[in-house]
């Protein structure tokens, strides 16, 4: 299982948002840190195939990012994901399950399981517009897991979660990371500290650091602040 990113670049008129990043992802949890505007979200969008790079490519086990096959192994939670206010939680999950190509019975079973996992079983038949911020975030996490993804890309996944939910989330990610590639972008350094196997730091579109968490002997936040200057 290998996600190969080769000289990935995204250039806009006046700015290079992602500057020739090359990296090989394998099973495990990758924590992506960077200041606002460092290029994390742009990078993640290219990994998910929803933003075309200006240069370079992304390939998973020989499968190009712009294919249905790649998308079938991908789970994505965007930073600012949307929902349909008049859909219930279950409707939303079933719709996304249909988009991921699942049949009715399997979709219903899997949606029920995931809603239970994120503690939304009781709210499953309520409209999403009645959900709190934390509940909306949890349903976002649940939909990302529908297809048991081999590549799980999470952009600010713990925003809006209370401490208890955050701990549950970390445990869940750690478990998933044993068999999949999990790329997690966050401003909450403690999330990275607790669950990331590998820390990646981006600055001005470039990957300025990548290394095992254990190799960073000092406080991660201090290390990060030193790196970005």
């Amino acid at each position, binding site marked *: 299982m290998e996600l190969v990113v080769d000289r990935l670049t995204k250039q806009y008129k006046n700015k290079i948002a992602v500057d020739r990043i090359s990296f090989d992802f394998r099973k495990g949890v990758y924590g992506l840190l960077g200041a606002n505007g460092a290029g994390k979200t*742009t990078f993640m*969008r290219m990994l*998910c*195939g*929803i*933003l*075309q790079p200006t240069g370079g490519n992304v390939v998973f086990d020989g499968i190009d990012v712009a294919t*249905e096959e790649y*998308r*079938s192994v*991908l789970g*994505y939670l*965007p930073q*600012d*994901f*949307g*929902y*349909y206010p*008049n*859909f219930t939680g279950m*409707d939303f999950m*079933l*719709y*996304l399950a*249909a*988009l*991921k*190509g699942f*049949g*009715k019975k399997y979709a219903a079973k899997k949606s029920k399981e995931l809603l239970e996992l994120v503690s939304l079983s009781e709210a499953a038949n309520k409209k999403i517009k009645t959900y709190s911020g934390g509940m909306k975030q949890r349903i976002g996490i649940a*939909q990302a897991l529908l*297809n048991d993804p081999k590549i799980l890309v999470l952009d600010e996944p713990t925003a809006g979660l209370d401490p208890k939910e955050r701990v549950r989330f970390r445990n869940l990610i750690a478990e998933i990371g044993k068999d999949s590639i999990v790329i997690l972008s966050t401003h909450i350094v403690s999330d990275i500290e607790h669950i990331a196997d590998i820390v990646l730091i981006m600055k001005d579109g470039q990957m300025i650091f990548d290394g095992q968490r254990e190799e960073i002997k000092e406080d991660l936040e201090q290390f990060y602040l030193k790196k970005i200057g």
Partner: protein
Amino acid sequence: MSQFSRLFYFEWKKICKRKGTWICLAILTAFYLVTGIFYFVGSKYVDGEFLETHIDGRDRDLANGRRMKGTKIDQQLLMQIQEAFGSIPADDPKYQLTDEYLSNVRPYEGVYQIVNNMLYNSSGRTLHVTEEELYEIRDNNVKSTWDQYGLTEAEIEYWKNKEGHIEKPFTYEYAQAYDFLVSMSGVYRVCLLVTFFIAVCMSGVFTEEHGRRTDQLILCSRLGRKQIYYAKIAAGSVFSLLVTVILLLCSIFSAFLFYGTDGFSAAIQLIAPQYSYDMTMGEAFLILAGILLLSSVMASIFTMILSELTKSSIASMAVVIAVMFLARLIPIPLMYRVISQAWNFMPINLLKFDAGFWDPRLVPVFGLKLTSWQFVPAVYILLSIVFLYAGKKIYCGYQVQGR
């Protein structure tokens, strides 16, 4: 249930869950109910004096029409009309209230209107014309229409041949219901309302995803490119088609309820004397209805694709409504043949019976000569395919950026 049908189901659900859809449908329903009531309530007055209720008037005209069914509009009938009108007091402005009018003239009122139409610019001669003169004037009006449209020799030959199939003298049949349906109140009105509905409700099918930011989740899903695109188009088109059918049925129901179902086999010349095609009113209505249904699918696909191109439901709504109004308000001079003919192919013009539908200019296709209503279905289908293909390119090429 196939995967496509599941996606279709959810896209249908999204359309149904939008408030705008139901507000629009409620407005259309209220419009039909209110205008429908006008037929049944209210009365007719002549110079402030009560003549009859609408219902009574309808009953009289229907009874008279049925009595006269099958009567040839010939010399004998013309003389009967002239004699009947001769019995009205000539200087009484309220002649419609007189017994002489109600008993002698009213039974011929329907035929009188038809003869008036046939005489067109010579309508002052209605009470003096002979059968020979009547049909001669009508034939001259037909030829004058051909000249006006600048028909070629081949086209004139075509229509002369069609004229040969028209039965003369015309046979009268009460066909108010079909007159209603092929006129501004029937198919044409449905076209206007459906265009409004499509502009308001279909312009959000794609833009909603960008506005709500659900596009990211959709585009990174396995079926989130091609398959969901087709599911959205299918759901939007079928919904629009369903609304069109419902409004058309409301029109048909109103027409038949008020005017009765008579007249399917009445010659189209009874309402369009200058038209040279051998066709009944019922056939004309069915053709118009078929074109309306096709045009609603085409318009909904166009609106959805436009909204995806502009990423704005307001912009696409404005364009669709503007095109509808401009197509009606801007006349293209007949001397610009190709442009004016193509302009008449637009649904809002073609479905206006006395404009695009009976445009005598033909379209040559592989040696055949087709009328506008024969040619246009192929145009609408082709355009729908073009829009579909272009829309797929636009949608599948969309990049999530800049937020």
